[in-house]
């Protein structure tokens, strides 16, 4: 057993629902107890879909358990077929149905429905949502796709976009346009938008574009083997990756058509003098493996940030992510426990967080600016406007999204100059955040204790609580004492670098065996860490 407050991923059957909901003409029958229909609202509310997810539930209750839950499943299957007339059915068990062992696959097979019935094995007690997506898509492809003669003109499939995917809708539009510009037709985009009959003709494409390894890598590998379709390894997130992706597509397709980069503004925006102040900004990156790794490369190579932390919640991507982190000289954080992430962020004291919905809230608590780069996300990250992450427009979107939460350059200088100013003091926060800017919390010295409990209060509508255990040990562990003069000097440093200054100075003092921090220690440390 593991005590969990917040989960980055849902159970695997939700992943299968994302595949089913992304597709058309496919229906899913889920053997599940009453109540599991809650997952519908993820699609109708967060993604704001205008129709019900194509999922029927058996919704068995306690009184059914002694009797014929298998019969209930058969009825649900038959009703779903009769009502929706899908081209294919997928059937699966949710966590509870897995325990009662009715075998949906076997039951559905014996019914003699006139369409393919695809059973899914979803080990609910071991695996999670992304696995569910990946597995459902693989089984659908295996059941329906066959080797076929290639299209005359060069074409590819786009693999990976699903329902409830972070910016999948616009990424598909962006990449489809890019491929068309290169003279490569898109044969089938799947799962999103595809019908089972489309999956059946996947084999006619010359190669596959794998947009999201989390949801479709297994299918891409299977197609490489069984349909002899190579697939792209580069995920086109960021300017450099998009260019590498274009090269890869050229190699696979033989296309020589030029790609128009006129609307790509991100490289110039990043090199313009206005962006100089971004240099060396320390960012902490967390999300799904694909988005986190891409963000780390963009941060380092295209924005001039320093990557202060890198991690992902999906173990499936742990290996490449660890390798990238090593290359960047940091230790990777692979965890699905948001408290671990919060601790890592606290200790890294970044100037910015790139993460999921959860990191947004951690950032709010700690007073650190944050931008969202990965699922899970809330309704505001399924925007009405066009906002891809991939391709050249994606690079533009990413630049704007990441820079916006930061204090702007001139403002940063003014805060330096007029730090004692009555209306331009640090507690006022960045001006473009209006009156709601979070206060910077300092958490490592006894003097900061009231601030820490204030953080607990501002954490929501909860009554004040005792400080988290790890915070208390932090306080006890800090052996160095700040002299009053040094403490007040520290307060003159703008809030957005103060946490880093405090950390660095304390580390410097500990390293030198100093028990007290004076103004001199502060400036010696500043010189020591100067870049």
């Amino acid at each position, binding site marked *: *057993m*593991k*005590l*969990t*407050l*917040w*989960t980055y*991923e*849902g*159970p695997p059957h*939700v992943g299968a629902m994302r595949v089913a909901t992304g597709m058309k003409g496919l229906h899913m029958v889920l053997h599940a*107890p*009453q*109540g*599991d*229909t*809650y*997952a*519908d*609202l*993820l699609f*109708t*509310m967060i993604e*704001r879909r*205008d*129709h*019900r*997810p194509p999922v*029927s539930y*058996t*919704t068995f*209750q*306690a009184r*059914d*358990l002694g009797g014929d839950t298998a019969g209930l499943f058969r009825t649900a299957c038959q*009703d779903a077929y009769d*009502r929706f007339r899908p081209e294919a059915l997928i059937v699966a068990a*949710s*966590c*509870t149905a897995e*325990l*009662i062992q009715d075998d949906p696959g076997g039951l559905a097979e014996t019914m003699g429905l006139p369409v393919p019935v695809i059973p899914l094995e979803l*080990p*609910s*007690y*071991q695996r*999670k949502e992304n696995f569910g997506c990946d597995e459902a898509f693989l089984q659908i492809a295996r059941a329906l796709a066959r080797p076929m003669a290639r299209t005359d003109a060069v074409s590819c499939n786009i693999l990976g976009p699903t329902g409830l995917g972070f910016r999948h809708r616009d990424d598909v539009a962006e990449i489809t346009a890019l491929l068309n510009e290169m003279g490569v037709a898109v044969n089938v985009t799947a799962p999103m938008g595809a019908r089972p009959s489309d999956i059946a003709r996947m084999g006619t494409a010359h190669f596959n574009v794998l947009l999201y390894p989390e949801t479709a890598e297994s299918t891409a590998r299977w197609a490489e083997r069984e349909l002899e379709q190579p697939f792209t390894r580069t995920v086109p997130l960021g300017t450099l990756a998009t260019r590498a992706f274009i090269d890869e597509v050229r190699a696979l397709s033989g296309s020589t058509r030029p790609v128009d980069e006129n609307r790509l503004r991100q490289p110039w925006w990043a090199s313009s003098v206005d962006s100089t102040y971004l240099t060396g900004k320390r960012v902490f990156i967390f999300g799904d493996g694909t988005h986190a790794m891409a963000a780390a490369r963009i941060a380092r190579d295209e924005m001039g940030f320093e990557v202060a932390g890198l991690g992902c919640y999906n173990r499936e991507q742990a290996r490449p992510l660890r390798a990238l982190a090593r290359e960047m000289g940091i230790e990777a954080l692979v965890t699905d426990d948001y408290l671990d992430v919060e601790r890592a962020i606290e200790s890294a004291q970044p100037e910015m967080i790139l993460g999921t919905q*959860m990191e947004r*809230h951690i950032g709010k608590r700690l007073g650190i600016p944050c931008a969202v780069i990965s699922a899970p996300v*809330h309704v505001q990250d399924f925007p009405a406007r066009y906002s891809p992450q991939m391709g050249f427009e994606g690079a533009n979107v990413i630049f704007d999204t990441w820079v916006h939460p930061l204090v702007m350059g001139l403002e940063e200088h003014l805060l330096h100059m007029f730090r004692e100013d009555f209306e331009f003091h640090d507690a006022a926060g960045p001006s473009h955040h209006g009156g709601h800017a979070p206060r910077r919390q300092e958490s490592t010295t006894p003097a900061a204790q009231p601030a820490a409990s204030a953080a*607990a209060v501002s*954490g*929501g*509508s*909860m*009554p004040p*609580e*005792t400080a*988290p*255990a790890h915070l208390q040990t932090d306080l006890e562990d800090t052996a160095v004492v700040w002299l009053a003069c040094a403490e007040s000097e520290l307060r003159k440093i703008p809030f957005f670098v103060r946490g880093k200054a405090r950390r660095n100075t304390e580390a410097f003092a500990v390293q030198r065996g100093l028990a007290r921090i004076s103004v001199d220690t502060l400036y010696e440390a500043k010189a020591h860490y100067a870049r």
Partner: protein
Amino acid sequence: MTAPTPTGCRDAPVLKERGQREVFCGLTGIIWLHRKMQDAFFLVVGSRTCAHLLQSAAGVMIFAEPRFGTAILEEKDLAGMADAQAELDREVARLLDRRHDIRRLFLVGSCPSEVIKLDIGKAAERLSAAHAPHVQVLNYSGSGIETTFTEGEDACLAAMVPVLSESDRKELLLVGALPDVVEDQTLGLLDAIGVTPVRCLPARRAAEAPGVGSKTVFALTQPFLGETSAALVRRGARRIAAPFPFGAEGTTLWLKAVAAEFGIAPEVVDRVTAAPRARAAKAVSGAAETLRGKRIFFMPDSQLEIPLARFLTRECGMQAIEIGTPYLHTAIHGPELDLIEAGPRLSEGQDVDLQLDRVRAARPDLTVCGLGLANPLEAEGLATKWAIELVFTPIHFYEQAGDLAALFARPLRRRALLDRRAPRLEAAE
């Protein structure tokens, strides 16, 4: 506003359906119960699905380090049962060590824990002994196989009844978790009428838990508390039958029923409540302009459907087409059914596709339904009011009557506003 008719709905035939149900499970109750009981923690023993449900239903509340969580069963817990009990002990000890403010811990059963017959009752006894007297550990089931949405609160309150202390005072017990502001208004009204002493179940803190005994009389403030009511009766308490305190009429009838039990004449209630009653009528009349003559269809969700249909038909002039409820407790809902004019179809249980067929055929002006159905119905051109808001928003008693009516009027007003400016997108089939 129709005058009470002799032809109520009590004897109307009820359409009983079984099939796919589009409802929440009882775990959802935790989201409001943990706010009400300020020193309680709700630990679900379940799967990742349960954790994901709570997260999805609680929305941003999850980030406030709320007092609920899920002990997620893993593969190894399913293998050996003795192990699962030891694992639970360890997780609970860690939790209580971290949260010293917790006085009551609820172990909440889920579908997986029920199906593998994990005995959380025994675990609660053992843990109660281990952590006494600081923490009391109780258990109930919020599983989908046993409970629907608000029945989670019923199961929770019913689990508290056996451990309430014995009392031999004549006391009124208010049963049902109400928002604090509403609870305070109610206590104020009862005090002004002369009903004392009054206690609440659930109490805000463990130390304020009421006693119960053969002189206790209790009044339900929520229609979904069948089990709790039965448990109180088993402790010798007596239920005051009344319509539920929604709208001016419901509130007045509820107060009069309580007052009568304490030997207080209805005229006293009329005198004391004259001002708030007038305020409520005035506030309701604004929204009623929008609602009058409109046809409403209730899909089953919370068991609030029957009392709300009574309020909307009698005080707002709406016409009910179908009143769906997950369960119909005849004894509890009877006084409400008496007040609803014959005509609407009553349905208990659900086969969601068949019910949606009826919605589409009837094309009501407003459909009350869950979040999984609301946007799809809107896209078909049908106005909806999503039902879960009715549980999270203060809607009981006089001062909230206007808000309650406004909750139903708002979707219709919005529709009219948007229609005026731009043609509606036709739903794509």
